[in-house]
C-alpha cells in the first residue's frame, strides 16, 4: 500500500482542520478494522490518516437517566458490552457490539466506525436505528445532528461532507416499558457478515398487552441499512400476539429489496427479513417485560 501521513489530533477542531485540508484524500482512523483492510486491499489510496482516538469527545461513554447515552465515535465495542449501565439500559446495543468480529476486533472496532463504513450489513447500525440514535457531526460549519437512519446514503457512502467528522452517537433514554433486540443471521456462529439482520425496539402499553409503538430496522436487504416504518406502523396499537408480530414481519419482508450475492439470495434474504423481525420482536417484548434475553 502507498504510504500516507499519519496525524493524531487532540481536539475536534484540530481533527476537522486536518480533514478539511486534504478533503477526499484524508480519512479518519478509529479502530481501523475496516479502513486498514480496505487500504491494504487497494480499494483507495490516501494522503493522510487522521487518528481520532486521542480526541476526548470521541472517547466518551456517558449515561444519564435524563439525557440518555452518549457513545463517542471511537469507543471500541468492548467498552460498550463491559459497561454495566449500557448493558442495563441498552441491551440491544450490547447484542450488536459483542458480535462485531472476534474478541480482537472488539478491542478496537467502534460503533462510530461501523456506522461511517456505511455497509448495508453493518452490525451496529440496525440496533442504533431501532434505539433512535442520532449522529453528532462536527465539521468546518456548524455541528449538526442526523438521525442514524438517514446517515448512510449508499454502500460505503454517508452524509458526511468534506472535512466532516462523526463525533458521537446520542441515544435517548429508554422509554418506560420498552425493550429492544438486535439479531443477525450468519451461516457460522461467529466471525461472519450478516446475511440479514434486524434491530427492533418496542414500547408496550401500561398493561403490557399491546404495542404502543415499534421501530424496525433491517440490514443487508438494501443498499443502506433500512428503517422499515411500515413494520412499526403495523404494530402500533395492536395487541401483543404472534398475529401482530406476523404483520410486522410481513411488512419487513415487503420492504426488503435485497440482491443476490455470495452471501445470500433475494428469496433467502426476504424470508430471513421476516424470520429475524419476528424473533427480534419477541426478544424486544420479553425485554420490555423485564425478562432476560440472550444476545444469540
Amino acid at each position: 500500500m502507498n504510504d500516507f501521513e499519519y496525524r493524531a489530533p487532540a481536539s475536534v477542531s484540530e481533527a476537522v482542520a486536518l480533514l478539511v485540508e486534504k478533503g477526499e484524500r484524508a480519512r479518519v482512523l478509529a479502530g481501523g478494522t475496516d479502513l486498514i483492510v480496505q487500504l491494504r486491499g487497494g480499494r483507495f489510496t490516501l494522503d493522510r490518516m487522521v487518528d481520532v482516538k486521542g480526541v476526548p469527545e470521541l472517547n466518551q461513554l456517558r449515561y444519564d437517566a435524563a439525557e440518555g447515552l452518549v457513545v463517542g465515535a471511537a469507543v471500541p465495542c468492548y467498552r460498550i458490552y463491559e459497561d454495566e449501565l449500557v448493558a442495563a439500559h441498552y441491551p440491544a446495543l450490547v447484542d450488536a457490539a459483542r458480535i462485531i468480529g472476534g474478541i480482537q476486533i472488539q478491542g478496537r472496532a467502534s460503533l462510530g466506525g461501523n456506522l461511517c463504513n456505511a455497509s448495508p450489513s453493518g452490525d451496529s447500525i440496525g440496533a442504533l436505528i431501532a434505539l433512535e440514535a442520532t449522529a453528532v457531526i462536527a465539521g468546518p460549519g456548524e455541528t449538526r445532528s442526523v438521525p442514524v437512519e438517514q446517515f448512510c446514503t449508499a454502500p460505503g457512502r454517508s452524509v458526511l461532507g468534506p472535512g466532516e467528522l462523526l463525533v458521537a452517537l446520542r441515544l435517548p433514554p429508554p422509554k418506560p416499558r420498552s425493550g429492544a433486540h438486535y439479531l443477525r443471521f450468519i451461516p457460522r456462529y461467529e466471525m461472519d457478515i450478516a446475511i440479514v439482520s434486524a434491530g427492533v425496539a418496542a414500547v408496550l402499553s401500561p398493561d403490557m398487552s399491546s404495542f404502543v409503538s415499534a421501530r424496525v430496522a433491517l440490514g443487508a436487504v438494501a443498499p443502506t441499512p433500512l428503517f422499515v416504518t411500515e413494520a412499526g406502523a403495523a404494530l402500533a396499537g395492536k395487541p401483543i400476539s404472534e398475529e401482530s408480530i406476523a404483520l410486522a414481519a410481513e411488512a419487513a419482508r415487503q420492504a426488503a429489496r435485497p440482491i443476490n450475492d455470495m452471501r445470500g439470495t433475494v428469496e433467502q434474504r426476504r424470508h430471513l427479513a421476516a424470520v429475524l423481525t419476528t424473533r427480534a420482536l419477541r426478544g424486544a417484548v420479553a425485554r420490555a417485560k423485564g425478562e432476560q434475553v440472550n444476545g444469540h
Partner: protein
Amino acid sequence: MATKHHVVTRVNGEEVEFLCEARHSLLEALRETLGLTGTKEGCLDGNCGACTVTLDGRLMDSCLVLAVEAHGREIQTIEGVASPQGLHPVQQAFLEEAALQCGICTPGFIVSAKALLEREPNPTEERIRWWLAGNLCRCTGYDKIVRAVVDAAARMAEVKG
C-alpha cells in the same frame, strides 16, 4: 513519502524504539523490524487471529494496528508469555494436551487464552469458545485447544492456591 516515525514503546516489559512508515502495521514492525517472529501472519485482514498481541492489555490483531499507534503503549507478544522460571501454565497445558499440530496458530491462541484466564479464572466451555472464535485453527478441530484452556485454568488456580 519516506517520512519515518520514531516510535518508543514497551514490548514484553522492555522499552524499545524503532523507526517506521505510517503504512507499516504493528505486525510488520514486530516481525520485520524487531525480529519478533513468534507473532504470525495468516490473513492480513483480521480474520484468523494468528497475529494476536495485547496492546495496553487488550487483545488485538496486530495486522490491523499501525506501528505508529504503538507509541507510548505497552505491547505483549508470545515471546513475553514464558518467564525465565519456565513456561506459562497455558503453554504447559497446550503441550500436555497436544493442543497444537502445525503450530502456526498456537502463539495467537496462547496469547488470547492467557488474556481470558487473567480476566476470568474459571470460564465455561461455551465462554472459552466465544472468546477464542477470532482465532482460527485448521489442524486440531479445536477440541484439544478447549481442553488445554480448561486445564490451564485449573493449573493457574492451583498456583494461586
